[in-house]
């Protein structure tokens, strides 16, 4: 390339660069106005309250309340339990669908997938119809056993929330696991079997190590989603089960305590961002392709 070519190329690149900058400006402004400003406003409200200099005093006040502490504990407990449930159920489903093929397995996998498309509260509503005090199960059992009170009474508790979340979020584990399992060479399993390994050893030593990235990434995603779950907790209305998103709702909509709501929201956002960072780290570390997520 001649030296004369450089200034031309440079000019052209410079123009392209400034042009690109102009094109980026409107979406950036839109993003700032519709997303970053409200977030900044929430953070500002949490620090300053209705008026006054920035202080961490509002955080301290909220952190000391029993309801906040319970909400943090419930949020983490429910998220961990639901994610663990999703991992176990997703793993079992994925193993059966992949390695114990049966007629309709593919249809069943698609059916489970459709849960991703449904609004989360719908599952809670369905659970109410089935397991609620006046639901099908309790009504049938009361009729059958002549019981005065509904015998199945788990729905309006943390267990009900966890079960509903497991039902909704298991596909988030199942999908990457199915993708990961499809990458395992059947020859590896056959050779392992010929070497004397039984089914459990093959699952433990061949299949699970290959599926570990998918399990970790899917588990992180579940954790992230269950921490932020609002619809299920709200709809089930379990007694004494308040999570961080529900506490934000209570403080803002029912008590009009916007400062406290913003403090809880900031904590919720921090927790979510931490989990999202974990999720990205897992996907990046083990490879999204292997995890079936990219």
């Amino acid at each position, binding site marked *: 390339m001649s030296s004369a070519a450089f200034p031309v190329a440079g000019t052209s690149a410079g123009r392209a660069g400034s042009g690109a900058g102009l094109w980026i400006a409107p979406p950036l402004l839109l993003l700032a106005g519709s997303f970053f400003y409200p977030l900044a406003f929430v953070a500002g409200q949490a620090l300053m309250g209705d008026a006054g200099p920035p202080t961490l005093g509002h955080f301290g006040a909220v952190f000391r309340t029993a309801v906040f502490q319970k909400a943090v504990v419930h949020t983490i407990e429910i998220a961990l339990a639901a994610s663990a449930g999703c991992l176990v159920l997703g793993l079992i489903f994925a193993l059966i669908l992949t390695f114990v093929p049966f007629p309709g397995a593919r249809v069943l996998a698609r059916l489970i997938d459709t849960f991703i498309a449904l609004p989360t509260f719908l599952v809670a509503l369905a659970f109410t119809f089935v397991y609620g005090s006046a639901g099908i199960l309790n009504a049938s059992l009361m009729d059958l056993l002549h019981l005065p009170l509904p015998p199945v009474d788990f729905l309006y508790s943390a267990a009900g929330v966890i079960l509903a979340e497991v039902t909704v979020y298991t596909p988030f584990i199942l999908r990457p696991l199915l993708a990961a399992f499809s990458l395992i*060479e059947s*020859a*590896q399993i*056959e*050779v*392992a*079997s*010929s*070497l*004397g*390994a*039984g089914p459990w*050893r093959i699952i433990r*030593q*061949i299949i699970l*190590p*290959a599926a570990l990235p998918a399990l970790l990434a899917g588990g992180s995603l579940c954790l992230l989603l269950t921490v932020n779950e609002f619809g299920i907790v709200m709809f089930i209305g379990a007694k004494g089960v308040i999570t961080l998103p529900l506490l934000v709702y209570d403080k803002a909509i029912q008590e009009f305590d916007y400062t406290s709501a913003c403090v809880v929201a900031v904590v919720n956002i921090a927790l979510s961002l931490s989990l999202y960072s974990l999720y990205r780290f897992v996907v990046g570390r083990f490879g999204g392709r292997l995890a079936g997520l990219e």
Partner: protein
Amino acid sequence: MTASEFALEGVQRTPARAALAPAAGTGIGFEGVSVAYRGATVLQDFSLRVPPGEIVALIGPSGSGKTTALRAIAGFVRPVQGRVRIGERDVTALPPYARDIGMVVQNYALFPHMRVDENVAFGLRARRSPEALASERIRECLSMVGMLDFARRYPRELSGGQQQRVAIARALAIRPQVLLLDEPLSALDAQIRRNMLDELARLHRELPALTILYVTHDQTEALTLADRIAILRDGRLVAYGPSQALYRRPPNRFAAEFLGRANLLPVSVERITEAGRMASVRFGDGRLQAQRHPQLHVGDDCLLCIRPHEVSLAPPAEAHNSLTATVQSVVWQGDLHSIALEMEDCILRLVCAPMRDPPRPGHPLELHFSAQDSILIPVDHGEHV
């Protein structure tokens, strides 16, 4: 068992290597085995006996059922009919992990998250072998395939040939009764394939009691390695016998054409000679001598099979047959010349050492071959044994 019992062709096996061999040879038996996938029969009434300590190659075109036969022995497919035996044991209903077999597949199937020594140890640990024994066996097997220095590497850090050696070591570590090789060299390039073929031959010399069933579509691999060859077509066994005998006296047209190259000349039997062992046949206007097939009688139409390298331009001392043909093409292939000739509406090929002055297309050539090297093959019912 003493080390001297393992002596073979003057080579004294080391006690360490002797320990890898099964205590005594174990044969394999297929008895009328049929396998079907979704109603389609892929292996039909397949019967075969693999003698203990021999290498038997299953060859055939794609879809002929050779891999299915191997998978039936391994236990990965369940026959709809027939029995499968390893030694005297009927293993038809046994799961793969209870069959005591070693298996090596085309793409190696090493466990990617395990190091080389962990791969080799897998079968031993699955069988709950004591750790001391496992360590010793890992060393023996890796040293046997020349991979001891690579014990702490991951499979991804090895070449294709090295991965295949590890796969062989892994299969041998459990000291299997039989070793199943499913196109083990197909994924390797030509040079490494030749080397690995030599390695496998050496391995079998060192483990003479090990019975090996070797599936391949490569006739050279089969001829180089196998004591016996079974040829399959459309799920049926069409030929089976000692490698050299099958090559020199193919029982049917398919075997003749699949196992090496063959010139097949349409002839008719005129006279049976030498107590029924030889036959005089008519080819066009001329007469040729060939070994007789027991099913052929005077007046039968059949094929005369002669291998390209058995045809010569100079008459050898024992040549009984001479033909004149016109050169159609001459191809130099490095270490040989391949010449295609035309006569009586037939194409005949011969291969010979490279010539300084090869014949030119269109020129007539006098061809000679021995009656002992030519064999008659029935035409009509030559498809099945």
